[in-house]
């Protein structure tokens, strides 16, 4: 079975214990055993940390690549709209590392208003970067480019944070720094890939998973005329189930989310609080194991903003005792910011059925009801009027 010269020279005697058949005489076994114990005791943790650092280094390479590709996509797109290559590159470098500072919450009074002010300024600043980078872009393209730029900024930030902990861990030889990054790497990479993929969606102006709210709103609006009721938010009045339904959505088809909270507040206040119900439709993060496109409902304002818009809805609803009902469409983070999956698009009819039922329940014919389709309206228009569609829902 084995080459005879190995046995003849007795090279395997120590290993096999062939002469004695006893562990105590098998000197090579003992040596290997002792070396393994010594190595694992002394260098085990160092070897483990080194393996983790190698994994993080590989992930850093991938993160850098993803950031570079998303940046290139933005540069190419901006250059099509009057931006000079070098100039756009310089603007992108300036925009990278853009940050917002949260307001002081030690004194919570007015924190929401202060936060809104900061968020408005952040959005305006990014819009100004885009205006400089692509001066000939129209408002729709500009909104899409701004969303693309936000993706690049997030990717760049992820890369910088991971690199920070990697270098800090290497410098201080503190395995806690390394371990916490390594353990979060799968989630970090998943988020990074989601943002990287989103750049293609915004570049082409294709609806993303988060656009499901505006898509349902558009189906409800049908061919009804719309008007801008707040910054980048449109509304239309339609009749549904013998009720007067005011449908609200962000102004499309550019990548806008608008200020739906402000719009709802204005509508409610303009009617002296005579609104029977507020129904909100939005995308919601699904738990692992839940199917994409699953529809669920509950009470409360379904809106994923940092706070101000949700706060306005809750404030006005509680002021006039208006029930707030929400219908959500489940999806994961990747699906929410990448081109809309077929399962999500096909959930529209189910959502409309639920909206109809929700409208009927607890209200009377002739009541005014607000239905808000929340989310990024990239690739979703405002009305089907051009297509002469009277009612699709």
């Amino acid at each position, binding site marked *: 079975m084995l080459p005879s010269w190995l046995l003849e020279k007795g090279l395997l005697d120590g290993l096999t214990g062939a002469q004695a058949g006893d562990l105590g005489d098998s000197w090579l076994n003992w040596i290997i055993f002792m070396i393994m114990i010594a190595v694992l005791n002394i260098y085990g943790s160092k070897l483990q940390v080194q393996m983790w650092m190698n994994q993080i280094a590989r992930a850093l390479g991938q993160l850098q690549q993803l950031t570079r590709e998303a940046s290139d996509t933005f540069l190419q797109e901006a250059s099509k709209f009057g931006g000079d290559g070098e100039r756009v590159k310089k603007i992108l470098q300036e925009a990278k590392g853009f940050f917002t500072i949260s307001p002081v919450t030690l004194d919570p009074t007015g924190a929401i208003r202060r936060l809104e002010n900061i968020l408005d300024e952040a959005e305006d600043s990014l819009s100004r970067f885009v205006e400089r980078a692509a001066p000939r872009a129209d408002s729709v393209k500009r909104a899409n480019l701004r969303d693309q730029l936000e993706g690049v900024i997030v990717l760049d930030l992820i890369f910088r944070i991971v690199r920070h902990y990697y270098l800090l861990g290497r410098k201080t030889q503190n395995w806690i720094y390394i371990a916490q990054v390594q353990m979060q790497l799968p989630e970090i990479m998943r988020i990074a890939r989601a943002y990287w993929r989103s750049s293609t969606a915004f570049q082409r102006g294709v609806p993303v998973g988060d656009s499901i709210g505006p898509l349902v709103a558009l189906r409800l609006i049908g061919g009804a005329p719309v008007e801008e009721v707040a910054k980048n938010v449109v509304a239309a009045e339609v009749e549904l189930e013998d009720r007067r339904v005011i449908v609200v959505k962000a102004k499309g088809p550019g990548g806008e989310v608008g200020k739906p909270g402000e719009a709802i507040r204005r509508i409610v206040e303009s009617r002296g609080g005579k609104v029977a119900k507020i129904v909100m439709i939005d995308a919601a993060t699904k738990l692992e194991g839940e199917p994409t496109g699953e529809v669920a409902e509950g009470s409360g304002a379904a809106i994923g903003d940092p706070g101000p818009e949700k706060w306005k809805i809750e404030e006005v609803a509680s002021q006039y005792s208006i029930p707030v009902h929400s219908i959500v469409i489940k999806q994961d983070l990747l699906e929410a910011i990448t081109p809309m999956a077929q399962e999500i698009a096909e959930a529209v009819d189910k959502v409309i059925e639920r909206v109809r039922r929700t409208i009927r329940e607890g209200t009377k014919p002739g009541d005014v009801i607000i239905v808000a389709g929340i989310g990024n309206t990239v690739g979703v228009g405002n009305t089907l009027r051009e*297509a002469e569609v009277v009612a699709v829902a």
Partner: protein
Amino acid sequence: MPEEREAKEGPTLAATALMILMSLGLAAFSVIIIYYGIRAGSRTETPGMDTWFQVLFGVTGLMLSLKMVYDVLRMKIAPEEEEPTIVSRLQCVDCGHWKEREFREGEYVGLKAEEACPKCGGSMFVAAIYAKKPKKQARRPLF
């Protein structure tokens, strides 16, 4: 483009060959250890600790090598992650008939489509735009 970059991911040919060679070497070594462990144990009426250790190490080594080969093959022949196709669903305003076709740049939901309804000749509009997954995923070639 994203698709091109992702397709290149996975172990290189040299890395695959090295991993397979290493696992084959480990498997051979494990078989030798098991063989000699059993041989040494068969000489006595009651097998000693040496025999048990050698068989245990051998079996562990064999399982490790099988796992290495499995991991390498799984990485190499795992189905390629194909990019979904972006399609536009066009719906007829008059008869409600719908059809899917590839998304065209500049289109958005609610836009009046250029084509007429193939069923009644009425005008169509873009009712939805979504990513359609490919039906069957192709396996990567091993080498």
